[in-house]
């Protein structure tokens, strides 16, 4: 009897966040049974694919014991860069009026590269100048916004939202892959591929193991012969490239871009990570956990809107979930009393 109570309690502590998710889904379904459907699932997945990619990038940095505030603004930068180069040749308000249609891969790679360069700079500042990651990425976040806004304001664009994107580009954001009557968005497939690659890096490569070691005890990592600086360069660069990719996909999904894209996405990403069990002190975190974290917020956003909950209440619920999830998680890792 006592044992059952104890086990139930332990179960609730360990899986609190999934319990919350289940309660939410049940509550939403009771209010409107049509919530439980295949289209709901694909909608939620489609909405959260780019967020998942950003969260994975953020997880790299968090596991090393750092934090990356530049994520959202990098998304904005790469969205604008890619969109500015994939406009239809006959679109009246072209960013580059004399630019011919480039193969799609060129702007995509340039935009991802821009993200990677920002990540590399973050990594250099953190590892060579030993500026704390929070401050480093706070600085680059603001700088990236400035650069993006300057680019966006260049004549003849003069801060007009960029539109008229070619369909060969936008299809990656809105197109689907048909399996019988079921249509799976390309975005979801891309996010799954990225997640699998991240899982392999986390679990099967030296870089991944070093990432956990650096977050677990940076001094011991140094003594063990891990080149901490070089590993951090790689990690911040990969994170930056993932934000860059997410930015491209955001532009493709919405069919346009402006310098305000990605605002505060870094906070969503960090929230998804910590709710998914990534430790903010480093050394702990898994890809499935991060995915679960992203899905939890996805269900909340979609589900609560579905049954018509006031968006302001949604904010309050999200905040409570972040705090309580970490509260439970910390209890799990504290010395068991």
């Amino acid at each position, binding site marked *: 009897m006592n044992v059952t109570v104890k086990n139930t309690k332990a179960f609730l502590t360990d899986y609190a966040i999934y319990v919350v998710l289940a309660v939410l889904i049940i509550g939403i379904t009771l209010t409107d049974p049509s919530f439980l459907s295949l289209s709901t699932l694909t909608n939620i997945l489609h909405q959260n694919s780019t967020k998942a990619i950003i969260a994975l990038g953020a997880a790299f940095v968090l596991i090393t014991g750092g934090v990356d505030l530049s994520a959202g603004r990098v998304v904005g930068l790469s969205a604008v860069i890619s969109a500015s180069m994939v406009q239809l040749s006959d679109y009246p308000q072209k960013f580059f009026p004399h630019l011919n249609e480039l193969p799609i891969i060129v702007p995509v790679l340039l935009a991802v590269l821009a993200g990677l360069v920002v990540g590399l700079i973050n990594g250099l500042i953190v590892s060579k100048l030993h500026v704390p990651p929070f401050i480093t990425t706070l600085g680059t976040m603001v700088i990236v916004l400035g650069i993006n806004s300057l680019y966006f304001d260049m004549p003849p664009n003069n801060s007009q939202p960029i539109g008229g994107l070619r369909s060969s580009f936008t299809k990656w954001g809105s197109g689907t892959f048909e399996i019988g009557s079921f249509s799976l968005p390309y975005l979801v497939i891309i996010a799954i591929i990225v997640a699998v690659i991240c899982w392999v890096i986390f679990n099967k*490569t030296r870089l991944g193991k070093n990432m956990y070691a650096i977050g*677990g005890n940076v*001094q*011991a990592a140094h*003594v063990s012969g891990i080149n901490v600086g070089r590993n951090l360069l790689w990690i911040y660069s990969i994170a930056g490239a993932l934000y860059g990719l997410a930015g491209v996909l955001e532009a493709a999904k919405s069919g346009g871009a402006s310098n305000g894209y990605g605002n505060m996405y870094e906070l969503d990403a960090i929230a998804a990570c910590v709710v998914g069990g990534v430790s903010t002190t480093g050394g702990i975190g898994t890809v499935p956990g991060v995915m679960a974290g992203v899905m939890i917020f996805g269900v909340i956003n979609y589900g609560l809107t579905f049954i018509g909950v006031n968006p302001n209440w949604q904010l309050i619920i999200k905040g409570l979930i972040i705090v309580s999830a970490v509260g439970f998680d910390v209890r799990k890792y504290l010395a068991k*009393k």
Partner: protein
Amino acid sequence: MTTTQYLLEMEGISKSFPGVQALDNVTLNVRPGTVHALMGENGAGKSTLMKCLFGIYSPEAGEIRMNGQKLHLPDSRAALGSGISMIHQELHPVPHRSVMENIWLGRLPLRGFRPFRFVDGKKMFRDTEKLFKELDMDIKPDTIIGKLSVSKIQSIEIAKAVSYNAKVIVMDEPTSSLTGNEVEHLFRIIAGLKRRGVAIIYISHKMEEILRISDEVTIMRDGRQIGTWDAKDLTTDLIISRMVGRDLTQRYPERANVPGDVLLKVEDFTSPIPKSFRNVSFELRKGEILGVGGLVGAQRTELIEALFGIRSLSSGRLTLRGKPIKIRRPVDAIRHKMALLTEERRVTGIFPVLSVLENTVVANQKRYEKPYFILEDNKRREDTDRSINRLSVKTPSMKTQIRYLSGGNQQKVLLARWLLTEPDILLLDEPTRGIDVGAKFEIYTIIADLAAQGKSIIMISSEMPELLGMSDRIAVMSEGSLTGIVDGATATEEEIMRLAAQHTA
């Protein structure tokens, strides 16, 4: 009930963790004004018992009484309030604040009236001065605590315990980082506390100390209490055999091999920091155990860390197998087949939240890399498994987070980590610090075996018997200089002490 002669009674204490019965019906009775030594190997349950006393763990069974009154200890605040204080092995002061603020933290004296109350700095200063005078301590209350030595900070911790009107003070390995003189000072403070009727529960692995200062000794093994004896009825051998549950005929393994040719030559090693090591030269032979003795502050750790590329040099030449080499970072040292077991296991050794497996293979990852950067999981597991068996590491599984292992087992994992890199030269910095007698012998055996296999070992140790028992030669440092190298077989403790104290005032 009130007629008891004991100040503190812990009776029938039991505590279990998933998979481990950490304490099984343990009883510990302590008389006022005495030093009660608590002994046992690492993992015997000493720390767990003390954590129960200090309200950090709540025991599943048993009762704790102070002066016959049952205590309820939900947290350490309650323990402090009941007159129980603990001096931890690792001290955690607030480094950038003053001595007095550290002492009165959480109960700073206030003046003025609500809600306009301010910290009364003058009263705090006076109270601290008075407290230090009572304990015969000479520290200015407004010094920034981070600037003081470990031993000073420790005596401040003791003063803090006294300021709580502690009736029972637990000291966990209090002398592990103190020099000879500092130990004497600590013992004087302890004598003073005894006169005030304070009971001291003293945890230490150092037999000489225990036999010298304790009145009673309780020995634990595998979570059980083996017994309590008067210290005067005990000898080192008796304690050891009761701790490990068998007779230890010898404390150091036989050494079979004779050192070979010179392998490593260190010349004129000098640190850029003025008071650190300077002009140190020595040779290390193949298959040799070179002990490094000296007092705390002799800069031995700094020297060895410079050798491994963690600290920088202002001058110095290094010759390996007759060829000059340069080591600027640990990676270079590892490439030259060197390994370093650091002194601060928790700070620079273990990755607490990572598994035993990851902790074992971390310095060796390159060898598991298959094409396309993928690591070979099977080999990683096999190597870990072999290491765990070879060094008999006690762990529930290789997936267990290393922080749940005892100190001795953590040390074995660290040793395993470096053995996997197949080093030729092992730098061991206090390899048995904070490790119990049984595990110590195992580690000595491993070290002796390695030397017999032709590996060269530099071993820093502050324990004389260990230096004399293990080393082929002993290099002694004092205040950053190498003051002499003596033969391990013929040297005496006096000779080493004389060299170690050569430059000290």
